[in-house]
């Protein structure tokens, strides 16, 4: 898979190292978060305990919801999802190809979730612009995206830096140990990833027995 070779480049390695550093430091920093459902916004932060995260406290399947997370909280969410394959779709409403690819991601989620693969969306919309957040929520609702949907509660360029992203759409795939094993991006003009690359990566991981858990209840 061409896009996989991105991981082997020096550039990606630098960003991966930066991301790992943030993982290490991020695990020790936990704050409040905002949960934004399709009908309401709660700013009440639940008590923080290890593994007590939005992923475990929100019923993602009952209605479309969007949860704000700072980068350290996002790291914590990923940590809480450890145990199975996790596919993260980095997107934003300002990103036209992201919107075009999103339905396919949901279609894949329907097929792979029963096999223990968790699909997550991470919006990189402007946390400081209520209209942008509303637009993201509208889109998710239109798509009936009943998967864990997060919105990065950071200034957009900072979020990109912390995630080691140059651009979106981008898909990160983690194995059951929480290690990012596929980083599918458009960083190289000559190695642009496709939906087939995502599909192939998941198929190979599931086929290799890397899923490691049953579908989780909310």
């Amino acid at each position, binding site marked *: 898979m061409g896009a996989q070779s991105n991981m082997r480049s020096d*550039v990606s390695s630098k960003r991966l190292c930066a991301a790992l550093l943030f993982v290490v430091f991020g695990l020790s920093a936990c704050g409040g978060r905002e949960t934004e459902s399709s009908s309401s916004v709660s700013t009440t932060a639940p008590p923080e305990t290890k593994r007590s995260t939005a992923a475990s406290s929100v019923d993602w399947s009952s209605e479309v919801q969007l949860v704000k997370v700072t980068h350290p909280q996002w790291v914590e969410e990923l940590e809480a999802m450890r145990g199975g394959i996790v596919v993260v779709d980095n997107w934003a409403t300002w990103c*036209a190809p992201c919107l075009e690819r999103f339905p396919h991601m949901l279609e894949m989620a329907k097929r792979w979730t029963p096999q223990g693969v968790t699909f997550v969306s991470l919006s990189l919309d402007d946390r400081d612009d209520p209209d942008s957040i509303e637009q993201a929520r509208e889109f998710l609702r239109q798509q009936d995206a009943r998967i864990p949907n997060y919105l990065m509660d950071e200034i957009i360029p900072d979020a990109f830096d912390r995630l080691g992203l140059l651009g*979106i759409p981008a898909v990160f795939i983690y194995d059951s140990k929480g290690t990012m094993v596929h980083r599918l991006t458009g960083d190289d003009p000559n190695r642009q990833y496709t939906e087939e690359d995502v599909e192939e990566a998941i198929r190979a991981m599931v086929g290799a027995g890397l899923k490691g858990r049953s579908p989780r209840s909310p």
Partner: protein
Amino acid sequence: MDQNRFKRTPLLAIVVGSLAVACFAGEFNTVIDIGAPMPSFSNLPATDGSSLSSGQLKEDIVVLVFLANHCPWVQGMDGDLVKLVTETKGKSVRFVGVSVNHREDDRLPAMKEHAQKHGYNFTYVFDESQQLGRALGATRTPEYFVFGKNRKLAYMGAIHDSPARRGRDGEVHYTKGTPTAFHVRDAIQEMLAGKPVSVAETRAHGCSVEYAK
């Protein structure tokens, strides 16, 4: 539109491309690094009805900026670009906007409308073959590549340190407030003064360039 411009110098393009991939990836660019030569191009159609080739560029400094009409980040920083071009009038600096995407709203007819609406005061060309974008490793819009008199890359990245997006409300939203570091302007000034560029690479923030698979 001449889609075969690179075929005129295939060996050079291949050699330069291979060397770039093998040796010259930047911190935020997977294809080239500072010091890389400007790729040659020919007969790219422009919004004013003319066409542009790299051999026509006689100025001391050439700024190639990758744009996309549809992109809210391009729209958000159009004003900054136009202002920068105005500031360099009378100096030996040439700005060339390049559109690469194949989506209808980024193609030449839409480019003409966009250039007129936003007061583009520079040549705006369509790189339909996407060869120029690929050769430079341009993956976001807007993304700047500044070349000196020797046509070596001296700066690549963002125009300044506060990426701006045009919202649905039509307003421009600067993500980090008023910009304080004007990377492209500073690079040009340093180059015109014969000094080395102090900040040679930054991460351009914007929409992703959509390359044909």
